[in-house]
């Protein structure tokens, strides 16, 4: 369902330039939203009374006894650094697409806390199943950002080893991965990795998906299966309010986390722009699963500050005011404020992180531009694990055919 058309409307390019590629949705538009759209937009900024929050948008820290977390300078500085670096290479991804180096980029702008909080709650032995916007989770799983580039430059469909990294490949068909995650978690339980007295032995799985995916049958079936088999899986829904152009009101009458009740397991809504709350809640949810009390649904209430992808034009369907309102809830700013105000970090720390972010962006860009088109054999490799004579023959015939063009420069250049 991702709009993979590499074409970019001129309007988007123009707006992106004007706004430095950030927050395209915040710009005024010629398209006047309907009253219904206005109401939907208001709903998208209404977070309800049940929101779990530890660090307020103003940078005030209020512990939540249900989700205890020891906050010290090292933790908060680490989370800040994670978010800044991830945002920096995400912005570089947008820029690389605009400059024709990537065919598409899927921005995570605004969702840094939802992802870094969840990602840092995972242990190496846990397993994560992402959708396609989870660059922050990839970061936490130790996947170098350059490894994400192949998908968006068109040289690869994955780029990392899902088993070794504990991070499955990006899933582009909406909701598929949620069932796969549930099956993996069923396997963890069959392996006796749940509810052991030695907590270090226990494992859990986390499935990432968006508000749009909650309408998919696969997500429903995943919750049914997870409940039936007590699977240690955290359903982590990043409700960023928009499924391309469709507001969350199109997907559900009730807050998404309420749906967990219908399946018979706990569901909570966390401030998805509060990295401490996301970390504390995800740790709790993963621990519940590891100890045998899974599954758990976590709705991280956040906002997609940028377009769905670089091919999208959000000015056609949502209000500028909405994005402006969410800018005040920025996930990084509140951590910075708290670090500075509490004396946990000074300007030299922030400068250092900024410098590191710029260096990462340079490395990310250089790697992208240097990426080579794979040889034609790549097309035939690993379609099957075991030999397949039919395919071997097709490959041999095609390579022979290509070789006949060796003295023709145009074909050879490819």
């Amino acid at each position: 369902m991702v709009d993979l058309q590499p074409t970019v409307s001129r309007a988007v390019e123009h707006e992106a330039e004007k706004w430095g590629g950030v927050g395209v949705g915040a710009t005024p538009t010629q398209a006047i939203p309907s009253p219904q759209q206005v109401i939907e937009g208001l709903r998208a900024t209404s977070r309800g009374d049940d929101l779990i929050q530890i660090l307020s948008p103003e940078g005030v820290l209020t512990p939540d006894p249900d989700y205890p977390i020891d906050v010290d300078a090292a933790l908060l500085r680490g989370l800040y650094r994670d978010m800044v670096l991830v945002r920096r290479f995400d912005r570089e991804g947008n820029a690389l697409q605009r400059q024709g180096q990537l065919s598409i980029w899927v921005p995570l702008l605004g969702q840094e806390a939802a992802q870094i909080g969840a990602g840092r709650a995972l242990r190496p032995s846990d397993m994560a199943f992402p959708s396609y916007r989870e660059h922050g989770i990839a970061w936490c799983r130790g996947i170098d950002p350059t490894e994400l580039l192949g998908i968006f430059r068109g040289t690869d469909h994955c780029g990392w080893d899902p088993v070794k990294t504990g991070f499955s490949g990006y899933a582009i068909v909406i909701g598929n991965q949620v069932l796969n995650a549930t099956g993996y978690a069923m396997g963890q339980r069959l392996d006796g990795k749940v509810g052991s007295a030695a907590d270090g032995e226990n494992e859990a799985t986390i499935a990432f998906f968006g508000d749009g995916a909650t309408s998919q049958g696969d997500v429903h079936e995943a919750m049914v299966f997870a409940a039936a088999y007590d699977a240690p899986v955290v359903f982590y829904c990043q409700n960023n309010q928009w499924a391309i152009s469709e507001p969350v009101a199109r997907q559900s009458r009730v807050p998404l986390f309420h749906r967990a009740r219908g399946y018979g397991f706990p569901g909570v809504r966390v401030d998805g722009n509060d990295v401490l709350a996301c970390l504390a809640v995800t740790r709790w949810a993963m621990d519940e699963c590891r100890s045998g009390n899974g599954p758990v649904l976590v709705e991280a209430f956040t906002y997609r500050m940028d377009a769905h992808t670089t091919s999208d034009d959000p000015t056609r369907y949502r209000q500028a005011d909405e994005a402006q309102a969410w800018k005040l809830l920025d996930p990084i700013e509140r951590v910075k404020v708290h670090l500075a105000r509490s004396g946990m970090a000074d300007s030299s720390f922030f400068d250092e992180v900024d410098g590191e972010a710029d260096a990462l962006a340079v490395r990310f860009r250089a790697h992208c531009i240097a990426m080579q088109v794979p040889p034609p054999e790549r097309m035939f490799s690993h379609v099957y694990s075991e030999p397949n004579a039919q395919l071997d023959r097709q490959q041999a015939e095609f390579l022979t055919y290509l070789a006949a063009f060796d003295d023709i420069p145009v074909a050879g250049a490819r």
Partner: protein
Amino acid sequence: MNQTNGVAQAANPTTLAKALNMGLRASMEADPKVLVMGEDVGKLGGVFRVTDGLQKDFGEHRVLDTPLAESGIIGTAVGLAMRGYRPVTEIQFDGFVFPGFDQIVSQVAKLTFRTQGAVRMPLVIRIPYGGGIGAVEHHAEAPESYFCHIAGLRVVTCSNASDAYFMIQQAISCDDPVVFFEPKRRYWEKAPLDVATAPGGMFSSVVRRPGTDVTVVSYGPSMPVLYAAADAAAVEGKSLELIDLRSLSPLDLGPVLESVRKTGRLVVVTEAPREASVSSEIAARVTEEAFYSLAAPVLRVAGFDVPYPPSKLEEYYLPDLDKVLDAVDRSLAF
């Protein structure tokens, strides 16, 4: 009737369903990572009893009665396979596979390629298929061609007890996903089963009966139709060479081409609708590779290009003895 294999019965004839059950049991005994999962496969033993007794003997952690959701069955099996298991999933009837089709196409078939071999999908999808049992809608279809069109899948089908016993085990040990079609109309037909002698790899087609005049190729539920046709043709002095494809993807056309080079005539028999099908592929490939050996066009006896009809009409729809003999005559008369 029991002419499943067209040869004399051995001392211990076994039904195809029982042979599958024995094969599943052997695989589960050999490898603790083999799981059986599907609707009603546990306590009930499956609606066709193919998994009868397995849950009792191996436990609920090895034989999983699943919620009624085919995408759920396939989708969770994908995760289990990633975890190192070898899930054998059962789709209760052919026409019920489509809710799981998305997971089969988008994940099962593509994961190995997507991850360039880092993830393997040793997953078996068992599907009872084909008509002739007087069933209601969605219970008598032959959807194998859809699956042959999907790169990354293996598609095989057995036509007798011996193949059922060995091929299911070979499918389970295969590191690629295998869609395993079972001819439900033949579940209760008995044939000799010698568990000590494997009939060869599951990706090979086999000449079931040698002949000289016309090559007739089929698989799964239509093989007994071919045996009957060959018997009838022999009375008229026509010698048919019968080939059981066994594997539909990849196709092992070596024996078919060899046979066509000898007979010059080919009839392909299948219950599946004709258009864009396994039979189309065979006709195309034989034309590409044995054009000068052909004395007549490749003819097909296939299902019509209609939705599967109400069961009182299915004898018109299905390939039968007369349709095959008619095609043989048309080929010879060309």
